[in-house]
């Protein structure tokens, strides 16, 4: 099992950020975890380090329901430049929504690897590891 170098958590809920951080650390799937309350900040980061693969995350856990810029805005923006990225980033939508329409809509984004529903549990972490 290869340890992931960097994992992004994009979620406006600080409690969830903390929980995710703890879960990831405890399961030991990643070395570093970086949390963003604003989706825009995460996009800015990706654009800033677009030519530095080491600084880019291996995995992004993206919430959908966020103020100012939500998960869909993030995906739409990301779709415009992800092919220029020097490495493949696994994006998982991690949301409290159990809405089918959201689940289907995610399928439109080929680069999204999966749709996960909160809470983030050890089972989900294991699944992520498997992916």
């Amino acid at each position, binding site marked *: 099992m290869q340890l992931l170098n960097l994992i992004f958590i994009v979620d406006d809920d600080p409690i969830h950020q903390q929980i995710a951080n703890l879960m990831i650390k405890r399961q030991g799937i990643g070395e570093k975890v970086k949390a963003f309350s604003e989706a825009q900040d995460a996009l800015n980061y990706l654009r800033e380090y677009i030519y530095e693969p080491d600084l880019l995350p291996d995995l992004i856990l993206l919430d959908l329901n966020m*103020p100012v810029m939500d998960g869909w805005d993030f995906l739409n923006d990301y779709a415009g430049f992800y092919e220029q990225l020097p490495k493949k980033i696994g994006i998982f939508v991690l949301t*409290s929504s159990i809405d089918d329409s959201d689940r289907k809509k995610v399928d439109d984004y080929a680069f999204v690897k999966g749709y996960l529903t909160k*809470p983030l549990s050890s089972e989900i972490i294991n699944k992520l590891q498997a992916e």
Partner: protein
Amino acid sequence: MNDAIINKALASFVPALLLDLNGNLLSANDRARGLVQLPGGNAGKVHYDHLFGERTGIYWGALLATLQNGLKACIELAGRSGQWTAWQLLAHNEHYILLGQESTQPDKLFSHLPLGIQQFTVDGFPVKSNALQKEIWGPHHPIFIQPGYNILRDPVYRQIGLSQLFEEVVATGGPVKKEILLRYQEFAIRDAIRLSPCFYEATVFPAFNQQKQITDLYLLLQECTAQKLTLMGLEKSARLLDSVVEHLPIGYVQFDHHGFMRRINHTHREFLKVRSGLQYESYNIMSDPFARLYGFNEMFMTVVTENRMIRREIEVDFSAEKTYTDLSEVRWMDYTLFPLRDPIDKKTIVVALINDITDKKLEHYMRTELQRNTEQLHLFFDAVDMGYATLERDGRVNFMNRKAAQMAGVEIQPGCNIFAVIPEFRTPSPFLDRLAQAMKSTVSESFSSYFYRMDKWFDFLVTPMRDNTVSVFIRDITGSRKLQKELHRANSQLSKLNRNLTNQNQQLEDFAHITSHNLRAPIANLKALMQLHNDSEKETEKEEYLGMLEAVINKTDETLNDLVNVVQIRKETDIRQELLSFESRLQYISHVLVLEISQSGLQITTDLQEAPMVRFPRIYLDSILQNLVTNSIRYRMPGTVPTLHFSSRKEKGMITLTAEDNGMGIDMDRFGSKLFGFRKTFHKNADAKGIGLFITKNQVEAMGGSISAESAPGRGTKFIITFKTE
């Protein structure tokens, strides 16, 4: 011999006059002087023409010519005492002698006869005539003035047959009579000269001597123009009458008093198609089987015995009669038989006038049938539960059934005009325009109208008919109208309910969405923290997790409270509304938020005169105004004095409140759809919870209003709230 006579005469036994070769009187004996009026007794300067010519019209030349032609030259002259004397001219030794002979009694008669009479010699030379005859011929007729005139040689009288009368008398020795058109008389009518014929009865008879030899011929002329013309007129009238009877437009049959047919006119012969050559004179109405079949014999007898007219209309089957007619059809005939008295034998004759009335009967039958049909139709229309009327285009009533009359509620007689008698049809109205238009239309038109007087709705169908009248069908649709109205109301209520349900459903869906996003998230956190807590073995970690749990629970509680607030708004659609002044509520809010307003320096301006008041729940309006003021402070542009301008308008029965600030504005392309969502924030503002506009929207919509926004980043935001008015 002449000498002896003359000598004798001159010796005064016979009246005698001696003339020279030119007709001048040389001498006269006493007898002659007594008969001829000589001027002053001197005969030396007197001419024959003076003595005789001027008095008789036979002048010297004419008399001399007669003598020279070897004829007897005679003239007659009335004497002083009325005595007529006949004078004969004789030639004597370079002289002429006129010898007189006093006329006898017949000559007197001759002159006084009331007829025109004229004496001719046997060979046609005129001898003498009486005055009346001269008048008939005219004084200038050649018979008097043309020397040697002979009536047998006159071409005109030969042509009309007068000359031949003389010849016939000579040949037969007896008198002959004939009506002749002797001449034409001219008379003037206005500017035109007309000729009228003058008819005379000419009688020529002979005079004999003792040897029974014809010595003279006499012509009597008596005018008979009037009689002749009357007779001609009568003949003409008779011919005309005959022709009229023959070609009468109806059949004419005449029977004698025994019943034998004496006449059948052309019209009836044609009608019966009588075979040519048939001897109908042998037909007797009393014995003919066909006549007896239809009782014509009895009719005839009644006319003869009772001497009165009979008229019958009989349907006759002519196929039963084979002898006289080829007409083998059934016809309706009109027979009129009446008696006439024969002017000659005074017996009764019977005339039958016969008219074929089959067409008339048929027409009558058709008319009766039509009338019966019409009556049946009217009965039918009276029975139907629908108003029906036939009208002339101008509105005159031909027929109106009972129901229609009931509907109109006024008495309507055929012939009266609906536009005059029905009150609603007299006053101008859209209905009346529509009706008048439909009455002129060439296609069926349907429309309905409410009548206040009867409190009823009527539906009209106006249909043009072929005879240029219109049929109007009227239905009372009050019941169905009410039902329709009820249905409409129920439908609109249903629609409203449906809208509300849809709305509520949408709200439920929204709510489910909100719940899933805003309640599931903290619960998921709780679950995760519980798992971390349970998996942890360190007390310090466990405590940390419990602390986090508390924070999550608090957050959840807050969210739940917000949601409960919203649910409350949604539930309270019946919340008390009151008439509120925008201005006064704004003052109240400014008072509540006095600290925030003074710290931010917000300048509030208003323009609320057009719609100063609104009926709305007070706490909602306060909440809305507070939200708008708070937002304008919270999202003000850094470095700029914040402003907020309120204005109200009345538009299309609604009241519109506009709140326009000069704040940061929102990217409507990106966030427009989420602007009024639950827990949606669009600025990195620590105070923003994303609940204010959500609540505002719910409060506005709960009261039937709406809210929208116009904005752009850096250009401020304009909220437009529409309040429903009653």
